[in-house]
């Protein structure tokens, strides 16, 4: 039977194990630890998107399958490629996209386990606004019994409003929380927010 000292040790170890990899711990540090890479990905995507709108990500756990959505005025095209497949480059060229730069972006995403990057629209006072939504699947973000495991970042073009707990607010009604894909987001800085979610898009 466990004596009191051992009991406390076991409980402490178990609690430590659970929380050392808990989403809460990750979310406070992750952005700043990877700020340069994450911001580089965002900047690169922001620069490439106006040349030909597209969304890109990885749809498998091993980050070997690239999902590419190319958006034209009339149609969206969805493709899946192996990361090394020449078809990926050929397709980008066929759509007159900057294949070299998009390939670099995909490599950067792969290296940091970024699962998806996309532009997303939202409305403030009936006016359309856009932001970049980026999701990452860090190795450590795997808490026991949890299905929520993506670290999602939003990059807004202008400063946002937050409540005293740092939760993203709707601009119009300052007390109303703004939800993105059904999730509440928290402040990292005036323009960047994060959430831990069960979906990468």
């Amino acid at each position, binding site marked *: 039977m466990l004596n009191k000292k051992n009991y406390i040790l076991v409980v402490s170890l178990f609690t430590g194990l659970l929380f050392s990899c*808990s*989403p809460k711990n990750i979310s406070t540090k992750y952005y700043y630890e990877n700020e340069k890479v994450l911001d580089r990905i965002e900047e690169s995507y922001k620069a490439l998107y106006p040349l030909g709108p597209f969304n890109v990500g990885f749809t498998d756990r091993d980050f070997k399958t690239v999902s590419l959505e190319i958006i034209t005025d009339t149609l*969206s095209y969805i*493709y899946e490629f192996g990361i090394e497949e020449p078809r990926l480059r050929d397709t980008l060229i066929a759509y007159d996209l900057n294949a070299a730069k998009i390939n670099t972006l995909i490599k950067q995403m792969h290296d940091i386990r970024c699962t998806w990057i996309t532009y997303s629209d939202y*409305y403030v006072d*009936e006016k359309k606004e856009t932001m970049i939504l980026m999701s990452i699947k860090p190795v450590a973000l795997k808490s026991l019994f*949890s*299905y929520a495991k993506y670290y999602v970042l939003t990059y807004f073009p202008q400063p946002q409003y937050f409540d005293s707990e740092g939760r993203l607010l709707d601009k119009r009604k300052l007390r109303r929380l703004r939800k993105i894909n*059904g999730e509440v987001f928290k402040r990292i800085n005036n323009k960047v927010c994060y959430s831990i979610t069960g*979906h990468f898009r």
Partner: protein
Amino acid sequence: MKLHLHNGIRYFIKAVVLTCNIILFTAVVTAGTPAIPVTPGKVTSTQQQAIDYVEKIRHLKPSPHWPNIKPALFLKNLKTNIHDIASIYPGKGTNFCGYGALTYLFLQDDPLGYATLLLQLYGEGKATFRSITFDPPPAIKLEAGELKYKGLLDINPAEQMWYLTLADHYKGYLNIFNHQYDDGDENRFWASVNYAKFNRMTRELLHYNSKAKGADLMRPKMASLYNYISEKMKTGTVVLFINNRIVHKKDHIRLKLGVPTHFIVAEKISIENDVITFMYWDYGRKTQLQVSTDFFKRIVFGITWFTKKEANAE
């Protein structure tokens, strides 16, 4: 941690409830409900008739029945739907896709009927169309115009009113445990559409003959899915009920519930070297994807084929 544990349990319970419902009710609902008889050869309206009708309306008064709908936005939304059918947008994260597909067909077949129905519903708070009376409760009337964070649907109050009204009026087995609208229910089982419910709605509201193959849990059995769909597309409009969790992946969970979740309207289909190129409409635009025949077989659970009442229906 507590929150995530709680979410995990909720997710598990949801999955169990959904699976039990499907197992319990699939056999019953696939038997279908009888179609409402419609006068054969009845002529429906053209897009131009609908344009002429809505363009005459310069100004709408605020409706006392829908206090949160801005009249100018309502009218703009209605006109956009009539002019550009593909613009129909059932909203991000909602369970309105079935109502969106229905509306897409409705606008192709009877845009004037759509316009008059929505204007009557807006003006009088209730409306009757083809002997079906829509009389939404106060909770729906308060919510329409207030849905937020759904993308373009945020500024489309006519569509908000219509989808909420449809979800309130039509019930299927997926809605058993959530019958009354509460805030946020547009994303929950309250708004869900199972295959039999979708077919029932289309039979009641549209001037089409329809024929459905498939079910919520069982894929349609046929020698060649591609041949069947492409044949049907030659003579009518085809709606597919698909497992979108495979096509439009949102997570990396390996073990996924093999059930359909999404309605799409087929636009074009072709095949080459066992790869199907498929174009479809959903969520305000058309999308094209290429998939293997095996993958296509895995995702398609329901095929509903619509033909005009007066022509080429079997």
